[in-house]
């Protein structure tokens, strides 16, 4: 009882603003209120430690800034708030610290969302907390909270929309969706009432504003651990964990950019292994985020424990459950496991354990979808999710029953034995492999896609399997050595021994390692690393999608794969998904298309008038996204046919804003018709230029090859522009998958033969078809180029290939593919206009259609139009357009020919 009284006093101490240490004594043995700043600093952490901590924090935040860590989440916007907040908070008298923390959280909300949205978010949050404390029966309060939650859910589902709902509901959801459950559970049994500031601080946690994916912080734990240790140790732990989070996130980027293969790249055991293991390693993103979040909270005295603990070294299913997202496990145990087990134990402990664990995993599955609903607006309940959680639950149940059956055996003295070390290492490696397999399954889009990807391992020979076994054995051996080192007292930890954390060791480590990373981020240092090293370091300083997610993004727009895609492990994907409006649909999902014949899975409906990606979208009588043209070429007109895909079609921009329309207007203004003031023309052979836009979103070389015969020739063009880009292969694989699965007739024998060689059938999964066709992609592209060029030349039409760079090529990615496409085009007989450099001097964000859509926006089209115009003039491709005498001003001399 005395202890309880002491604990109560401890809480009251916190309420009164006098943080006490864990043993009930005032922190650092100082009982009296501070007398001025010097007294405060001397009493709390001391000036020296304050300066060391501030220096570490400044360095770590600089690393975050230099490496653009969580840039898309808004973290960079609040680094100043975090640093300034820490400095002021540390100097404040303890009784002002909680109110200051709440104020700081609200400032951060305002900084990220603006004043009006912040008012809505804070107002709604206060309302929800207020409902929990209405002077009515507990059940009535819960009912009210659920009713208000249902109303907000209706808004989140898009049933009714306000100016603020789409912006703040994900964060409001993140703050309240789980914490409100815990809060209601705990306040029902609350012995020592919390202060208003404690309650507000629990919900308005500073980092939450830029981290929607947030650990489920327990209310009791949150209160219990507030300044329950030496203040400098808590702050030091905070800085260290923020930095650890940064290292996890940088490792994640390395793996995400350089290791994760695209499904079509997986062709054997080695790639399967990389695919499986990298899927699990990508979880570093979540553990990195959670370390940063808890680290930030530690800076303000919340001495919360780890959310993850060496999870790649788990030795069993229960062990994984205890190391991976520990807060989630505790939440499940508290809200579901104990209540179910205590009720069910009258049937016997074994059935009770099975039932309680099964309920936990069922709840985990459903609550993940519930979480996704609040963060993204969709409630995905997929077979993959169900199977994953079901399987993991079954394994944990089996493991729990086994562990429970061993409980009554007397514990043996733990002693080092080589045998024990081998067994433990074997368990750890085995568990890592099993978890990687399960994780890769969970991360896949469908059971079939995963199965067909993994099945490619069967194509590898015995040698590959022998190598795999040898590699795993090596890993086990390494594990044994690590255990031996630990047994001999060697430790790599920077935090000091448990119970006696060191200050100097983690401080020196953080200062040193953060300085090193900061130096690496500087161009001067990178120059010393060689081209490849510098390239790698520079690449992890930017946030971009890896090849797999670029594929998914491209495929997603045309195959409707974006909805319900619950990837927690892609920084940008997460941001992209969160912002994408619900009516932002791929072309084929809209009413602008109808089913086509032959290789045309779909085609644009003639004379369509509607909205696409929030922009007006009209087609002419021939089904072109263009103005009206007669089929017969008017006298005096120079006619160009443009083949291409969504960029050429102008996805997301208005008809007059496409680079095709802009170029046409400029050609007519400067090279045809009446003389222009800017560039007087000198020849009047052509009165008018017409560019007919035959491009359709997602069309590949197959559709564009067929388009020549079936549509273009009848319009009698003088020139064909065939626009291609770096997504050529992705579109090709996607279109072939559709053609094969729909068993559409392909009336080109050469193309039929290439596809037949791949051995694909209509019954195969999409991923399997893509994988089989991928090795033949270059052959098919060459076929398509040959088809367009040969058809053009046969009819006296000049074929010109336009290479329109993708926005992801800004900054200089691998140009191998670009060079290959150009080589294919030249082989086919095209004149090539490479528009590389069109975006020079512009950042991607200003050119891209939207953060969640990689197509060109209005400015991007203008840049391409300008670059194309210059290239046409420079290469003397158009009639009357002469190469300029002044390259810096290509139109200054006018056009003569």
């Amino acid at each position: 009882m005395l202890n309880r009284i002491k604990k109560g006093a401890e809480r009251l101490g916190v309420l009164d603003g006098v943080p006490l240490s864990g043993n009930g004594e005032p922190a650092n043995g100082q009982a009296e209120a501070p007398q001025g700043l010097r007294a405060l600093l001397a009493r709390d952490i001391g000036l020296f430690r304050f300066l060391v901590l501030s220096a570490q924090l400044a360095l770590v935040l600089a690393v975050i800034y230099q490496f653009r860590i969580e840039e898309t989440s808004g973290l960079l916007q609040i680094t100043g708030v975090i640093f300034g907040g820490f400095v002021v908070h540390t100097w404040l008298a303890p009784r002002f610290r909680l109110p200051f923390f709440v104020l700081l959280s609200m400032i951060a909300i305002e900084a990220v969302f603006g004043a009006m949205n912040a008012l809505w978010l804070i107002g709604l949050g206060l309302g929800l907390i207020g409902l929990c404390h209405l002077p009515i029966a507990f059940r009535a309060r819960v009912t009210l909270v659920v009713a208000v939650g249902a109303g907000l859910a209706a808004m989140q589902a898009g049933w009714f929309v306000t100016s603020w709902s789409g912006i703040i509901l994900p964060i409001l959801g993140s703050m309240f969706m789980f914490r409100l459950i815990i809060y209601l559970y705990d306040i029902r049994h609350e012995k020592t009432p919390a202060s208003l500031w404690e309650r507000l601080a629990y919900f308005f946690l500073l980092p939450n504003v830029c981290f929607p994916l947030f650990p489920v912080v327990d209310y009791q734990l949150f209160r219990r651990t507030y300044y329950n240790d030496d203040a400098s140790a808590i702050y030091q732990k905070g800085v260290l964990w923020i930095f650890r989070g940064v290292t996890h996130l940088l490792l994640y980027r390395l793996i995400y950019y350089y290791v994760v293969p695209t499904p079509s790249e997986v062709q054997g055991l080695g790639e399967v292994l990389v695919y499986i293991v990298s899927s699990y390693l990508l979880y570093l993103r979540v553990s990195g985020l959670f370390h940063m979040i808890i680290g930030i909270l530690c800076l303000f005295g919340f001495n919360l424990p780890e959310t993850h603990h060496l999870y790649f070294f788990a030795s069993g299913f229960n062990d994984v459950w205890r190391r991976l997202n520990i807060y989630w496990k505790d939440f499940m145990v508290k809200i579901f496991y104990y209540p179910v087990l205590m009720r069910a134990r009258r049937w016997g402990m074994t059935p009770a354990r099975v039932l309680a664990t099964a309920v936990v995993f069922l709840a985990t599955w459903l609550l993940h979808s519930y979480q996704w609903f609040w963060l993204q607006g969709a409630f995905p309940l997929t077979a993959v999710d169900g199977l994953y959680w079901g399987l993991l639950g079954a394994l944990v149940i089996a493991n729990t029953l086994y562990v429970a059956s061993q409980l009554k055996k007397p514990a043996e003295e733990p002693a080092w034995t080589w045998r024990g070390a081998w067994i433990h290492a074997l368990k750890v490696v085995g568990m890592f492999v099993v978890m990687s397999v399960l994780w890769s399954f969970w991360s896949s889009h469908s059971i079939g896609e995963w199965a067909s990807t993994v099945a490619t391992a069967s194509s590898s020979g015995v040698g590959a399997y022998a190598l795999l076994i040898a590699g795993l054995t090596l890993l086990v051996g390494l594990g044994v050595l690590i255990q031996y080192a630990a047994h001999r007292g060697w430790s790599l930890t920077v935090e000091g021994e448990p119970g006696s954390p060191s200050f100097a060791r983690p401080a020196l480590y953080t200062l040193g390692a953060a300085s090193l990373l900061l130096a690496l981020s500087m161009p001067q240092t990178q120059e010393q690393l060689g081209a490849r090293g510098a390239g790698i370091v520079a690449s992890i300083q930017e946030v971009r999608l890896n090849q797999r997610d670029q594929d998914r993004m491209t495929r997603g727009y045309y195959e409707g794969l974006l909805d319900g895609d619950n990837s927690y492990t892609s920084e940008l994907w997460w941001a992209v998904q969160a912002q994408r409006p619900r009516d932002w649909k791929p072309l084929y999902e809209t009413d602008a298309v109808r089913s086509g014949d032959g290789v045309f899975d779909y085609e644009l409906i003639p004379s369509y008038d509607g909205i696409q990606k929030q922009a007006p979208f009209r087609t002419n009588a021939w089904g072109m996204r263009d103005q009206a043209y007669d089929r017969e070429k008017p006298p005096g007109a120079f006619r160009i046919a443009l083949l291409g895909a969504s960029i050429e079609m102008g996805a997301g921009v208005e008809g007059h804003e496409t680079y095709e329309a802009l170029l046409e207007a400029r050609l007519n203004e400067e090279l045809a018709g009446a003389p222009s003031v800017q560039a007087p023309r000198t020849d009047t052979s052509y009165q008018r230029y017409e560019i007919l836009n035959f491009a359709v979103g997602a069309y590949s070389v197959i559709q564009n090859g067929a388009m020549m015969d079936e549509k273009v020739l009848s319009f009698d063009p003088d020139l064909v522009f065939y626009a291609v880009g770096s997504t050529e292969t992705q579109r090709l694989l996607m279109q072939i998958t559709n053609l094969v699965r729909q068993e559409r007739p392909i009336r080109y024998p050469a193309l039929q033969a290439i596809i037949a060689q791949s051995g694909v059938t209509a019954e195969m999964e999409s991923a399997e078809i893509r994988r089989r066709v991928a090795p033949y992609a270059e052959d098919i592209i060459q076929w398509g180029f040959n088809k367009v060029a040969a058809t053009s030349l046969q009819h006296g039409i000049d074929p010109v290939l336009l290479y329109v760079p993708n926005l992801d090529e800004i900054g200089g990615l691998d140009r191998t593919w670009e060079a290959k496409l150009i080589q294919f085009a030249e082989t086919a007989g095209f004149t090539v206009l490479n528009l590389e450099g069109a975006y020079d001097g512009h950042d991607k964000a200003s050119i891209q259609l939207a953060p969640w859509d990689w197509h060109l926006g209005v400015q991007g089209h203008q840049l391409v139009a300008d670059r194309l115009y210059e290239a046409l003039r420079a290469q003397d491709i158009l009639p009357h357009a002469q190469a300029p005498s002044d390259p810096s001003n290509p139109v200054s001399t006018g056009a003569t020919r």
Partner: protein
Amino acid sequence: MTMKSTSTAQAEAIKETVRDFLTEFITPKEVQGLSDTAPLITGGVLDSITLVELVAALEDRYGVTIHSHEMSVEYFDSLNDIAAMVQSKMDNPS
């Protein structure tokens, strides 16, 4: 014997029960080293499986009822916490 000494003896008996219980899960040496304030849950000695077993043992031994919301660090993180909680229930059966 005074009320205070009875209470202290009872508390010691409860701690001894818990120590006996723990010998089944951790080594006798570790049990001997456990102070009355040593962290059991936050220190990793008790987990969700062993805590349930301990609750069952305490209920059987002292005839008290422990609720699921009480299976937390607040009541089970040290021998002192456990003794205080069980004693409180014995003193105020409800």
